């Protein structure tokens, strides 16, 4: 009996160390680890092909064969959930990488140069802020057609100002610190100071924001798929699964819509927890 918890603790130990002993953050990290593994090894882990149909199991509810039941077309919900983690994580990952790079570039450039450059970039960020992200996505869908591309581009643009505003704020603070001024006095160019010294020092805070953004981007992309603008059925995708599953709700089958919904909520919360934890740690180190 005791072997299991010890074994489990051993597995969690490195995560707990990263989390600084915080139980909630350890759990969040564990959730993310499971998700990544599921996405990477979906064909080996999933009990069925996500598209294979077992009509006898249609809207079956939880059974030993189908742990999370099957949907209205008789496809295994658990398998679709596992495969759904792929688009579910890939889309936000691209969004976060692009928006973080873009935001850091804009934010740090605005902070470093100040004056006109700052005004122009700050106004540009406000402009994007004031434009609803979902609307931007729908417009881009009109251009690129439905699928993952248009929503991902739209979200990348829409999320950049969140990173940009934060990056500008912390870069302004950091720029005023004497160690950055000492680099200037040593004769380094602004470019080298920013890339080699300022960015690495503000990166942890930006990373925290990006982790939180990951969750939100996942939610937004799922919403677009749910609305039919994003990933298209029959591809397994959490947002699209909720859309397809919602019609079965009336027939009393909760699992096809509920399972991907819960997956989204858990993932978003996990990313938020990790992000907050990074931010807290930076704050503690600062003081």
């Amino acid at each position, binding site marked *: 009996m005791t072997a299991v918890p010890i074994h489990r603790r051993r597995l969690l130990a490195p995560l707990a160390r990263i989390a600084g002993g915080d139980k909630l953050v350890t759990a969040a990290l564990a959730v993310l680890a499971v998700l990544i593994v599921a996405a990477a090894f979906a064909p080996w882990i999933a009990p069925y092909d996500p598209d294979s149909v077992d009509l006898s199991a249609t809207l079956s509810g939880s059974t030993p064969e189908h742990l999370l039941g099957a949907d209205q077309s008789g496809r295994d919900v658990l398998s679709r959930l596992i495969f759904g983690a792929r688009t579910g994580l890939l889309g936000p990952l691209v969004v976060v990488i692009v928006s973080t790079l873009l935001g850091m570039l804009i934010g740090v450039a605005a902070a470093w140069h100040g004056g006109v450059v700052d005004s122009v970039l700050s106004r540009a960020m406000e402009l994007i802020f004031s434009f609803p992200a979902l609307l931007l996505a729908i417009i881009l869908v009109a251009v690129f057609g439905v699928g993952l591309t248009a929503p991902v581009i739209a979200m990348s643009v829409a999320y950049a100002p969140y990173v940009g505003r934060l990056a500008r704020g912390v870069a302004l603070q950091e720029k005023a*610190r004497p160690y950055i001024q000492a680099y200037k006095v040593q*004769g380094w160019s602004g470019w080298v100071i920013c890339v080699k010294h300022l960015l690495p020092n503000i990166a942890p805070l930006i990373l925290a924001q990006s982790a939180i953004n990951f969750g939100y981007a996942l939610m937004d992309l799922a919403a677009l798929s749910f609305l039919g603008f994003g990933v298209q059925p029959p591809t397994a995708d959490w947002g699209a699964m909720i859309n397809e599953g919602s019609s079965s709700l009336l027939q009393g089958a909760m699992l096809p819509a509920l399972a991907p919904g819960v997956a989204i909520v858990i993932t978003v919360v996990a990313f938020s927890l990790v992000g907050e934890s990074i931010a807290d740690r930076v704050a503690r180190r600062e003081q």
Partner: protein
Amino acid sequence: MTEYALEVENLRKTFGDHVAVDDVSLTLRPGGSLAIVGESGSGKTTTARMLVGLERPDSGRIRVAGRDRSGAARGRATRLARAREIQMVFQDPYLSLDPRVTVAACVEEPLRLHFAMTSAERRARRDELLARVGLGEREADALPRRLSGGQRQRVAIARALATEPKVLILDEATAALDVSIQAQILDLLAEIRRDTGVAYVFVTHNLALVRHVADDVLVLYRGRVAESGPARDVLAAPEHPYTRLLLHSLPHRGWDPARIAADRRALATATRERPPAPTSEKRSVTS
């Protein structure tokens, strides 16, 4: 007569409507030591920042080792040349070192930028510089947060000396340190000046310190030169009421803070009615 290490004429700097520095002139001979004394708002820090190129003067001229350095450093060559002429040590040793960079790397960085050295030569020079400020191998591997305030200030001095400057600006460089440590750093600075012939500009609010570290003194009041001359003469027989006020403000036995408070109000009233007149020519430092 030999050329000055530093020669400043009619320096002026405004921020909006606020005149931070107004008509400040000074000279510093090679290997000399000049104290710029004043309180917050006196313009002493702005003056120091203009000298190292962190601010650009609105008008006036700065010559370092005979070369004009009034304008912005355009281009790499000017930037580097300037960095090899003049360096700065900042007030707060807790903020003036890059938190991510070890002591050794901190001293090696300017060497890498300024001198073509093999890595062995660079390491040897680094150890020499660290030994010069009384730091050994143990400190070399440490990150700044593991060091005490005094040790950090030693690192900042070693870093500033790395480019072999002719002039070193010490911006309240000992103000944040404990008294028992401050004296150690002052000893070290005196020794370095004796050995290397570098010239110092001490920016400070403490006139008692001036007596022990500077040959000449420049007292700034509200952005203008109130009084200047050999430190010994100015401290023994101050001519400007503000210099007298500063002297009396130092706590000592038989101190009468109430009288100082009255003098301060009188001075403020007098200068509101009539801006401070420049003092007699006999004590200009340019003699």
